[in-house]
């Protein structure tokens, strides 16, 4: 591996994030100037590592559900039998994106109660659009000659989908999943308003007690996680493209 400036930066970011999550107290002198009247400089009402992991778990669960539904819908509307559902699917997915996640929380809490569930629903709906649109583009941009050949050689519709269309669309589908995940890492912090475990707790605690250090900690850890996740998934995508020779 070439040790470029960007890889160095990434390694530094990983080290910084892990150091902060495992040994937050060591960073107390750094955050102390941001506090007033002797307030604690490091969040002390919960374990930062556990909160970060809980948030990551919520985001991943929501992304898995979004992927299943969005890819499924994308496949459905690109089949001759499902083409009529394209406008409907697009509308649904667009509503998921335009309806603010906070509003989704407000609507779903009375239905499913406080905790992780409303957050999962909000993130699921919010993350559908990029995956759906990318799946659609990926499936539609398969070279017509390749599909014609697959058809002419006697592949069944299912074989064409699994052996030709989805593999060729995979780089774009993965890109959609990456976008959706990264958006939702940030969005997930609002889940703390309805008692979902996550770094939003730290930010809210900071807002309530007027403690800038807390707000900054919650925000920085969330931001670092999003950036690193983005890089990690981009690397996975490049690897998939390379092994599948789809550059």
């Amino acid at each position, binding site marked *: 591996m070439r040790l470029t400036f960007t890889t160095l930066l990434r390694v530094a970011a990983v080290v910084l994030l892990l150091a902060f999550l495992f040994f937050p107290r060591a960073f107390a002198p750094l955050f102390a100037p941001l506090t007033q009247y002797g307030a604690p400089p490091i969040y002390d009402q919960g374990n930062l590592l556990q909160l970060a992991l809980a948030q990551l778990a919520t985001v991943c669960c929501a992304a898995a559900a979004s992927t299943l539904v969005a890819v499924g819908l994308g496949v459905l509307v690109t089949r001759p039998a499902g083409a009529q559902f394209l406008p409907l699917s697009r509308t649904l997915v667009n509503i998921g994106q335009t309806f603010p996640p906070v509003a989704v929380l407000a609507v779903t809490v009375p239905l499913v109660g406080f905790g992780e569930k409303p957050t999962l629903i909000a993130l699921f709906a919010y993350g559908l659009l990029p995956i759906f649109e990318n799946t659609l583009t990926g499936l539609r941009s398969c*070279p017509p*000659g*390749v*599909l*014609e*050949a*697959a*058809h*002419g*050689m*006697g*592949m*069944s519709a299912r*074989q064409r989908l699994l052996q*030709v269309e989805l*593999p*060729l669309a995979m780089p774009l589908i993965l890109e959609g999943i990456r976008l959706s995940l990264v958006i939702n890492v940030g969005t997930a912090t609002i889940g703390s308003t309805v008692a979902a475990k996550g770094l939003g707790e730290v930010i809210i605690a900071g807002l309530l007690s007027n403690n800038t250090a807390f707000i900054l900690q919650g925000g920085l850890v969330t931001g670092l996680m999003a950036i690193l996740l983005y890089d990690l998934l981009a690397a996975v995508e490049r690897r998939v493209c390379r092994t*599948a*020779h*789809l550059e």
Partner: protein
Amino acid sequence: MITLEELSKQYGNTTVVDRVSLTVERNSIMVIVGTSGSGKSTLLRMINRLVEPSGGRVLLDGADTRAEAAHLLRRRIGYAIQGHGLFPHRTVAENIATVPRLLKWDERRIHARVEELLREFQLDPQAYAAAYPHQLSGGQQQRVGVARALAAEPGVLLMDEPFGALDPIIRDKAQEDLLAIQRRFGTTIVLVTHDMDEAFRLGDQVAVMSEGRLLQCDRPAVLLTRPADPFVARLTGLADRALRLLSLTTAGEAALPGSCEGPAVPASASLREALSELLWRGAASVAVTGADGAPCGHLTLAAIIARGRP
């Protein structure tokens, strides 16, 4: 043997193929020519049911092609298209193995068949089996496309303008290879093209289509000398029909006994090439040499001229 009986295709009120009846003899090459929009591709695609006919039927060795599921039928029929349509995410070997895999051949047999085909198409298995399509030249990609179509040893091979995207030199080689392969495997080939030179070179029979109808289906020489329709005459080229006719006979076939001094042409060259040689040299006669380079006859200008008339 392929028999088309009153085959038709309508899209709404538009008739794309209009009651075409045609017989393709076993082990022969049938070339379908026509302008774009003549229905020739649709006709071809009805043979393997990529397009379902609106009327009429297709018999493959006497059996109606509708007797089995379309995708199973297609696995028995080779199919090669313009621009090859190779799977970009699969290696050359995997591409060629596509239909044998669909037919669930065992891996050893598939491997042996892939190697055989690669050698047949002058592609070293060591160098090319694990390569990806984008690493090959246009001519190599096209050969892999044809090899893939022949992988499961189909009795029938359908080709839709297979050489359309190749430059003239590679196309010439590809046509030569196809003729050699056809002789070796005895495959029945139906090929669609708009290139008349290609049709005359490859076709045992040439079928001319226009506006969905079959105008004439005959041996190339008959098409030139006795066109059934003014359109056929126009398509086969009024201006150079004599030269086309000459290109159908080889120097070896037309050679007169005895040899002569001066320029020579190989027996495998066409009379058109022999004539060109005579004109170029300003000579009145040319020697004909066999495959071993020894003279086996000669041709005179008068003898060639006699062959260029109906």
